[in-house]
């Protein structure tokens, strides 16, 4: 059976197990009239049987599928002709890739050689055997456990408590996924990054001034060693983020002030969601917008006043990114301004201050920590934003502070290094993970700081 069919069969078996457990418990006490003699509800006995049937089988299936491919490939490799088997590791993996593609039907059989075709046939055969074995194992296991649990059901069995313990553990398991995600990110990205740092020194990476990750194929080619100095990328990221914040902070802050303090409630109810639409538009749309409209427009304006603007200028990307970030700033600032107690405003009014004076000298000062926290969150958003810069910013690493020139960013380089044909284990690919590690650590630090500030601020007025 295919894995999908097996899962479906398992689901059906579990439903069957539920009914078997339930009817067994009822039969023990002589039908529904005797239900008061049972410790738990009949459905709890059913659930217990179903859980015993499903959970172990599910674990076996997942483990089996996780390791099936690797084991079969091992066995298939042993069947390859000796000449192929002795190839260096990376060439062998290419051959195995062909085998896999042929099995998956991604390439026509005519396009590969005889040994690959034989290996693919072997692979298919092995997979058939493996699937058959798994099916038999699961069937025996589930039916065995169902019968075993059924024989153990007695009216005194504390089925509800057992089911609830299992459910609680399942809930705990689900809640730890967030922790495992973080561990997974740190472990995987850091692992690849350290492999990169074992070839390129950390200091060269962090403080090097030139970035050209093109590695030559032969060692004697000109410029054969790639340059992995990431400072131009950091500078480009900082420049574009700065431009974005210069757009987003004033507009976002002023709109938050207007909506929170001045606007008529009716205006507010439709203006606020409308502004937030800006945050819901997919970033790829902004990227297209920047590349199609803003970039060429800036270039045109530059020409009319005699400035040379690159069509992939930092200004275009930063401007559009700023538009995207407006709602983040405005809704956070709005929350913070609304959290300032009315008594502070009333006090200022009583001293004769106008509304704008109250806002500037009392409300904003009181809300400042929260607003700063919100801005830090927005900065972290700008640094990690990918699609806008991939589509609207440049590719060449350019160490400049001129917003009219093309610069590149950390995220752009991650994408260009990892999309398309990859050679695994080359510094070029690993460099993307090193950049990813830096990106993760910087945004993490910003987020922790921002969340800390915001939480402190909230506590102050609660």
């Amino acid at each position: 059976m295919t894995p999908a069919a097996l899962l479906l069969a398992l689901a059906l078996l579990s439903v069957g197990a539920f009914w078997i457990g339930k009817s067994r418990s009822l039969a023990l006490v002589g039908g529904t009239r005797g239900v008061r003699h049972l410790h738990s509800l009949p459905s709890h006995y059913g659930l217990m049987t179903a859980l015993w049937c499903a959970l172990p089988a599910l674990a076996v299936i997942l483990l089996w599928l996780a390791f099936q491919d690797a084991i079969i490939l091992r066995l298939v490799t042993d069947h390859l002709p000796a000449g192929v088997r002795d190839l260096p590791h990376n060439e062998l993996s290419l051959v195995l890739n062909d085998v896999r593609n042929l099995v998956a039907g991604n390439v026509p059989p005519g396009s590969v050689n005889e040994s690959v075709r034989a290996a693919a046939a072997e692979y298919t055969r092995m997979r058939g055997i493996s699937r058959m074995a798994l099916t038999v194992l699961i069937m025996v296991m589930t039916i065995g456990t169902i019968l075993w649990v059924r024989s153990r059901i007695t009216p005194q069995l504390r089925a509800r408590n057992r089911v609830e313990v299992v459910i609680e553990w399942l809930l705990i398991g689900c809640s730890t996924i967030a922790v495992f995600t973080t561990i997974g990110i740190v472990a995987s990205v850091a692992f690849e990054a350290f492999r990169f740092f074992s070839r390129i020194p950390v200091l060269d990476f962090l403080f090097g001034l030139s970035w050209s990750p093109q590695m030559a194929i032969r060692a004697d080619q000109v410029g054969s060693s790639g340059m992995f100095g990431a400072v131009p990328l950091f500078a480009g990221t900082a420049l574009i983020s700065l431009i974005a914040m210069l757009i987003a902070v004033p507009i976002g802050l002023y709109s938050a002030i207007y909506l929170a303090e001045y606007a008529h409630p009716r205006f507010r109810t439709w203006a606020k969601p409308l502004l937030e639409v800006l945050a819901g538009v997919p970033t790829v749309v902004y990227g297209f917008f920047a590349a199609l409209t803003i970039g060429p427009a800036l270039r045109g304006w530059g020409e009319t006043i005699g400035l040379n603007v690159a069509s992939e200028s930092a200004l275009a990307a930063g401007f559009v990114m700023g538009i995207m970030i407006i709602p983040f700033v405005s809704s956070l600032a709005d929350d913070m301004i609304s959290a300032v107690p009315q008594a502070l405003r009333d006090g200022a009014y009583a001293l004769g201050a106008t509304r704008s004076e109250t806002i500037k000298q009392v409300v904003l000062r009181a809300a400042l920590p929260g607003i700063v926290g919100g801005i830090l969150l927005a900065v972290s958003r700008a640094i990690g934003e990918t699609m806008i810069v991939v589509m609207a910013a440049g590719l060449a690493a350019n160490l400049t502070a001129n917003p009219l020139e093309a610069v590149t960013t950390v995220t752009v380089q991650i994408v260009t290094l990892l999309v398309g044909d990859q050679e695994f284990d080359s510094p070029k690919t690993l460099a993307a993970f090193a950049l990813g590690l830096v990106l993760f650590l910087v945004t993490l630090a910003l987020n922790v700081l921002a969340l800390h500030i915001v939480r402190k601020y909230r506590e102050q007025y609660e």
Partner: protein
Amino acid sequence: MNKPRLSAKETQALVARSIRRRYWAEHRFRTYGLGAVIAGMAFLVYLFFVIFSNGIGAFRQTELRLDVFYDPAIIDPAGTRKLEELQSADYAAVVRAALKERFKDVEGRAATRELTHLVSGSAAFDLQRAVLRNPSLLGTRETRWVLASDAVDLTLKGHVDRALPEAERPLSDRQLGWVDELRAEGALALKFNKGFLTSGDSREPENAGIWGAVAGSFFTLVLTLLLSFPIGVAAAIYLEEFARKNRWTDIIEVNINNLAAVPSIVFGLLGLAVFIGFFGLPRSAPLVGAMVLTLLTLPTIIIASRAALKAVPPSIREAALGMGASKIQMVMHHVLPLAMPGMLTGTIIGMARALGESAPLLMIGMVAFIVDVPKGITDPSTVLPVQVYLWSDSPERGFVEKTSGAIIVLLAFLVVMNTTAVILRKRFERRW
């Protein structure tokens, strides 16, 4: 204390003088605020205007009326009427013959080539399909509308400046003449572009469609929903209803809040290193895409679900416990149904975010050029936003329109999802 004391009159005069300035500052401040709100909305309106004015044309495509003669001498010279013969015949020659029949005065290879470039390469496949469906067409004549080429389409939609020198235009003077001639007699027309909504990707703008990307998005999103909703709700229930406040739950909470703000591309790196590199799952597959997007949307769903659970008043819980329910029964039978609308709203918003997400999917290879419409969760496929990215990278002018058209479809899906969320919230929101 050094300042001289002012008399009441002098103070009044001072205040009267400054009050104008202060009111003016007040007015200015207020105008800045309104200006900022208006600026934000103006950006929104302009963005939508650009996308719609560029993209509306993608839903219409130029077609060309041809008098086709299904010449047995070209299609089936041996007269066998075998399926393989009919399949491998030179249908481009049939199209060429039909064009030459219409323009009898065209002589020479260069002119013929220019003439055939008026028609899309897919016209031959179109004829092939018609013949395979109905072999009795052989030897008959038929008036058919076939797809015109991308260059003709652009010209008809007015995207080509005729004043440009000939070398910079997609169509030569001669071709323009033919186009005008055909147009005058009604043999060129803009028709609803069914292929855009029903076919897969293509290198030719006139044949490219979004159905492959829509199907890929569908598989990815359904799988994301199936994975993230149960896990997110379960995690929220545990944290809100069962967990004792201790260091472990603190760690989980901090983690969730931080993950919500981690750049999405980092999740893509995780997917590439762990799911593809370590577990050997297939590249470009909706399965891996859904797993990455699940990790990405989980924080959103958990946070929304916890808020929904918090909104259920404690009296409900106490009543259930008082009636002898166990804690799990109390949650499953009473609290969860009441919190469900809020959880669903949060989930839909998370799904909308997942639908628009593209950066992590680039990392796991859902960015390949894929013509076939995916049929399952392990087929190589792409998704709508990535299709937008791919098309926006294409140099052909025709793809600008297609890109905007795909964006319109994407935005339409997002509007539907968000409206559902809003309606759900309005309809089931309960104030206790």
